[in-house]
């Protein structure tokens, strides 16, 4: 069953918490991974791989650069999840 927007944000918040140590409540749609959440380009790869597993979605490397905010990633996952 496909995840809802709310479930995806909550899932991303857990992933970002695990990888960057940011409190889950600070991970919101308008937050930038790099500027607000202490996720650098290498850690972003980890976020992407974890999100792929969790939401059963493929996020090709060339699409990763477009995922600047939590909202971008949430929208991408909503659209592409199996």
């Amino acid at each position, binding site marked *: 069953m496909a995840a809802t927007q709310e479930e995806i944000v909550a899932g991303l918040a857990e992933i970002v918490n695990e990888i960057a140590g940011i409190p889950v409540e600070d991970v919101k749609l308008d937050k930038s991974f790099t500027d607000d959440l*202490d996720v650098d380009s290498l850690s972003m*790869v*980890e976020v992407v*791989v974890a999100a792929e597993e969790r939401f059963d979605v493929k996020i090709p490397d060339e699409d990763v650069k477009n995922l600047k905010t939590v909202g971008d990633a949430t929208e991408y996952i909503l659209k592409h999840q199996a």
Partner: protein
Amino acid sequence: MSPTNRTVVVTGIGATTPLGGDAASTWEALVAGTSGVSLLEQDWAADLPVRIAAQIAVEPGEIIPRPQARKLDRSAQFALIAAQEAWKDAGFTAKAGVDSSMNPDRLGAVIASGIGGVTTLLDQYDVLKEKGVRRVSPHTVPMLMPNSPAANVGIELGARAGVHTPVSACASGAEAIGYAIEMIRTGRADVVVAGGTEAAIHPLPIAAFGNMMAMSKNNDDPQGASRPYDAGRDGFVLGEGAGVIVLESEEHAKARGARIYAEAVGQGISADAHHITQPEPSGNGIAHALQNLLDNTDLKPAEIVHVNAHATSTPQGDVAEIKALRKVFGDDADHMAISATKSMTGHLLGGAGGVETVASILALVKRTAPPTINLENLDPEVNADIVSGEARALPEGRIAALNDSFGFGGHNVVLAFRTV
């Protein structure tokens, strides 16, 4: 002093070892004659011929925040902990630049390890085989590269004068400190954070060292396994951890009113050019390094009252070092209290020179030579004054200590420190 021959002093020390999470607790355990060796209880150790090691006393995960720790190989975690302790101990309150008493352009970092991020490399290879390409961590390369501990310490403390990683197997930590002394002496930097680190307690290095017949197989008596100079010694015990010091030009230290532990007198370096793993048995290669130390510094043999020996508990190596000390110092070697602290810490490979430099400096400051434990039957070829059983007081007055480190490849590094 000309700007290219400046006096170098030690103003900070830090360590995380099998005996303690900092320099003070490590020193206490050394003086008390405590072994840091234990049986490896991990499942992966069950089938190994060697099932003992000197594991870290305080896990780095208890100190470094998880998001930072997961991007650092264990060897870099140890280095960072020891470097931060040494930095604080030297009286700095924040990274260079933020603490206005340290100009980042004049701060260097030289941290070495013998084999780099070996557990990261091997663990990620397991991930590749078991879970596939996509799951290999994007942090793998910056974690496994041998300069990673130095680079991370440099970033953390703001070292812009240069960050270096000399690699010479078990002499690496000492070579790093020697390199740092030269950076200051020749004017490239005013302060350098320097030392060695190693984290190689993993089945592959243990299997490999074990198959070389280099390690003690005394699984029945872990605490008695590392026994330098004892006639029954059968190889080294692998240890892990880091030792880091803050070196500083005397003028910079005095200008900021820093406490000075000791003078870093200098170093003697040589190479055996003999065999890739065996020491040159007559001790000529080591003697050459000791002679270089005397020729290149104002150190007098009469001042040297203590040697923290390399003495790993291997049959050949322990004897070659003693022969070299006799060859160069003759009867002066009679007044040198020789300690083999690897009897307690195990052999930290590239971390050894760092931790043993910390021990050598504290031996001068406390005027105490730590004991060599497990020495029951002195090898008759060891013609020297080994401090065995209990710690021993060192004389008053101006005294110096040597820290010897030798590595596979025939690398010989001798460092000298002196009271101020």
